């Protein structure tokens, strides 16, 4: 097995007492003081996350946007220069039944018609880069910057004031980005995130990442800055109903099943997996990603079975499976994303098999907590 990769901030995390663990092949901080405290800090003040494990890819050259638009699900012409977009790379196979699964979900940042920046998931970045290189026309270059750039996410209601105090642009809209400098190096200030809060993701060269982290943390007394780990990132994103690739999205779970049809440019003549996805959309998905909210004290976990209600027992028919589940620190109850039979409606009561106990849940439409991304 390959040794785990480390971000430039690894020593800082260990010195701060973080619990470190493997995440997508990277040794990452899961928590510093505790998931609940870090989660609450992001909802009420501001948290900083090292998300440098995420991939970073630059696609440059004449026709870069047109090339990507023929590959990725979302329509890049829905955005213009300076804007970002959630999109997916789906599988294209000659066998229809093997097409349409999600290789990765990602954010693309459109700088110009010949210049796109892309952030895939850590463990999927190599396959995304390989797929892009295999499909790229002459003149379009795929530059893998995974180990050259780091990303610090700054998320929470106090993030705007914190970014302003750093002398960086803070006033741009959600899903847009702006260029800045730190210690003479270029920093991209993206108004994106994975928490549901007003927030930024700072993309910077690895050479200045430690200094950038320290500078944000130095303002902790003024803004209540807290280090937040991937544990809190997961509870925050689950409260928003944001899918996580490998759990709620995968080669076996299509955008139609995951409720991500809004991130597909259905009118585009071409994108990878198009025929399969159009067919699935027309016939209706065989299962649908929904939210589940606990009615008792049960805490759902991935792969737990979802059943029809049958008294207090687990005698009901299996109607789905939990894909993400956790305790919501905001709601103080169990929440889940689950792939359910399409006959199940919002508002229905279902039962989750919590290690042999029948735990009752209500089917909901996420988010579980109102997002504040645009405020």
């Amino acid at each position, binding site marked *: 097995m390959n040794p785990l990769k480390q971000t430039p901030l690894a020593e800082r995390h260990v010195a701060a007492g973080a619990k470190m663990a493997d995440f997508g092949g990277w040794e990452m901080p899961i928590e510093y003081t505790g*998931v609940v405290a870090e989660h609450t800090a992001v909802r009420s003040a501001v948290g900083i996350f090292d998300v440098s494990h995420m991939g970073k890819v630059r696609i440059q050259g004449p026709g870069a946007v047109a090339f990507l638009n023929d590959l990725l699900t979302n329509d890049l012409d829905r955005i213009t220069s300076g804007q970002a977009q959630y999109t997916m790379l789906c599988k294209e196979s000659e066998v229809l039944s093997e097409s349409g699964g999600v290789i990765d979900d990602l954010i693309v940042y459109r700088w110009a018609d010949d210049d796109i920046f892309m952030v895939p998931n850590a463990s999927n970045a190599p396959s995304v880069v390989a797929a892009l290189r295999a499909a790229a026309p002459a003149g379009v270059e795929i530059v893998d910057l995974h180990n050259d750039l780091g990303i610090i996410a700054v998320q929470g209601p106090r993030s705007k004031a914190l970014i302003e105090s750093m002398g960086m642009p803070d006033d741009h809209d959600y899903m847009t980005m702006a260029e800045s400098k730190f210690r003479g190096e270029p920093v991209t200030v993206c108004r994106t995130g994975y928490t549901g809060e007003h927030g930024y993701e700072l993309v910077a060269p690895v050479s200045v990442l430690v200094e950038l982290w320290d500078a944000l943390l130095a303002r902790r007394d003024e803004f209540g800055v807290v280090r937040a780990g991937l544990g809190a990132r997961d509870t925050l994103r689950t409260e928003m109903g944001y899918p996580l690739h490998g759990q709620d999205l995968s080669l076996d779970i299509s955008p139609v099943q995951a409720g991500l049809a809004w991130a597909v440019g259905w009118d585009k003549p071409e994108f990878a997996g198009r025929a399969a996805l159009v067919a699935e959309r027309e016939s209706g998905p065989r299962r649908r990603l929904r939210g589940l909210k606990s009615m008792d004290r049960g805490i759902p976990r991935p792969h737990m079975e979802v059943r029809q209600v049958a008294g207090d027992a687990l005698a009901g028919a299996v109607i789905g499976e939990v894909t993400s589940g956790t305790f919501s620190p905001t709601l103080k109850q169990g929440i889940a994303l689950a792939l359910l039979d399409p006959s199940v409606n919002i508002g229905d009561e279902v039962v989750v098999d919590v290690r042999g106990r029948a735990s009752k849940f209500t089917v909901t439409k996420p988010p579980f907590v109102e997002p504040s991304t645009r405020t």
Partner: protein
Amino acid sequence: MDPTQLRYTAEHEWVREEADGTAVFGITAFAQDALGDIVYVTMPAPGAALSAGVACGEVESTKSVSDIYAPLDGVVIARNDTLDSAPESINADPYGAGWLVTMQPSDPGQLAGLLSAAEYAALTLKD
């Protein structure tokens, strides 16, 4: 509470013998730290029979769930009801306010067979 005076199991429970012959148990500081923020606990009800080494409840954190194993044979006298609304007491004070169950051991000799504080400390270092 002085953790060096307690007995321990390899499953990360501590046990304290009371003057009246009953025993109190909970999970160790090492266990609560490994679990992270504890958000839910299930414990056996008073009157329930316990068998040493057999699961009798669960302690669940934001990220994972772990079985609670009975440290001794016996019967439950009381469960710590305050943990229903404040499970975080286990994180804050695992040897005090975070106690789980008071039990009546059926074999008082069993306690001496549990780990000493030094033996338990050696075990957690190995982990």
